[in-house]
């Protein structure tokens, strides 16, 4: 899992080739923390086909907001630097995220 911040976000996500999943989360977001082990499990399963990354919004609030993220949890999938799919809030369940990944890998 690549840990993102305001400095490496562009290079790791927006300028990256192929598929990147970004898990936007925060220390005080309990639903995000509950989701985290599931994201790690999905990385085990699909990590060879899609790069997994996470952004703690305290390390890049403006970066997140520039991506249209103003609420957590938010899971985005980028392809060649362009966001192609997302899940937010209650919709971001482990099962729904796996379905979203399967659509694109």
């Amino acid at each position, binding site marked *: 899992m690549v840990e993102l911040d305001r400095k490496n976000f562009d290079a790791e996500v927006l300028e990256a080739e192929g598929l990147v999943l970004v898990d936007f989360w925060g220390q005080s*977001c309990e639903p995000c923390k*509950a989701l985290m082990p599931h994201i790690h499990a999905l990385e085990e399963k699909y990590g060879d086909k899609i790069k997994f990354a996470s952004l703690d919004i305290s390390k890049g609030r403006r970066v997140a907001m520039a991506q249209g*993220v*103003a609420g*957590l949890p938010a899971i985005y999938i980028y392809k060649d630097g362009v966001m192609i799919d997302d899940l937010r809030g209650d919709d971001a369940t482990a099962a729904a995220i796996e379905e979203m990944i399967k659509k694109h890998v």
Partner: protein
Amino acid sequence: MSKIYDVIIVGGGPAGLSAGLYAGRAKLDTLILEKAKVGGQIVTTDEIENYPGSISDETGPKLIERMVDQINNFGVELRHEEVTGFDFSDKIKVVTTPQENYQAKSVILATGAVPRKLDCPGEKKFTGRGVSYCATCDAAFYEDLEIYVIGGGDTAVEEACYLTKFARKVYVVHRRDELRAAKSIQDKAFANDKIEFIWDSVVKEISGEEGVVDRMVLHNRKTGEDTEILADEDDGIFGVFVLVGYIPETKTFENLITLDEGGYIDAKEDLLTNQEGVFAAGDIRGKVLRQVVTATSDGAIAAIQAEKYIEENF
């Protein structure tokens, strides 16, 4: 399908965890199924002042962590699976998840409630893009920005106070001309000079040009007037925190269990439902006060009722 549990508890909030504690201590073979975060609604609460015996600076997550530690000591199994259906037609009941069909002698329904939505145009589209249902999750995005809290109950007014730690201004939009929140919470809010109230108003529409919320239309129910609210140009966004109460999470069993007219499980103090061996605990049942303290109380009673039922019937 193989093992038969004594009791399966559906929902891992305070009611479910308390039921787990009592069932575990009673040496019942117990499984708790929780679809998302253990602790339910209370883990998004930053401050708990009214749970008897809470330590100072008690937060929802810390309280739940101790509850989970406690049940772990009694061998209760906790799995993160979403229950999709039930079969209560036989003496051995079946609880279905995408992973498994679980069997149990008794079932405790502690599924709780989820935040109510506004059901106005733009709400769904802008969820996570300015529309939020969780103050602790999303407050940090609104550092020095403006926030509109929709609602007038305990949660809405309490969270409005919390959000003033981040936002430069918090407006509380309430459909009536007085708050429903407890007097002590109201006093705190009225004394906070970052909070302003917009009375008799409901949200008619939420929209945004740049993919985030920058416009909202409020409708005044008394004057019939509509007011357009636009984001400050430098801000480009404002937050809309929807805290307008809860709706019971009954969709997986609404055809099997008798509900009251409010949509909650019709169970009295004995927590019996219309199905033998199936009990209700916590926010999911019709009651006058929905708090952690009443949820944990229900959990204890439900577990003891399940134990009694198993003794008498198996």
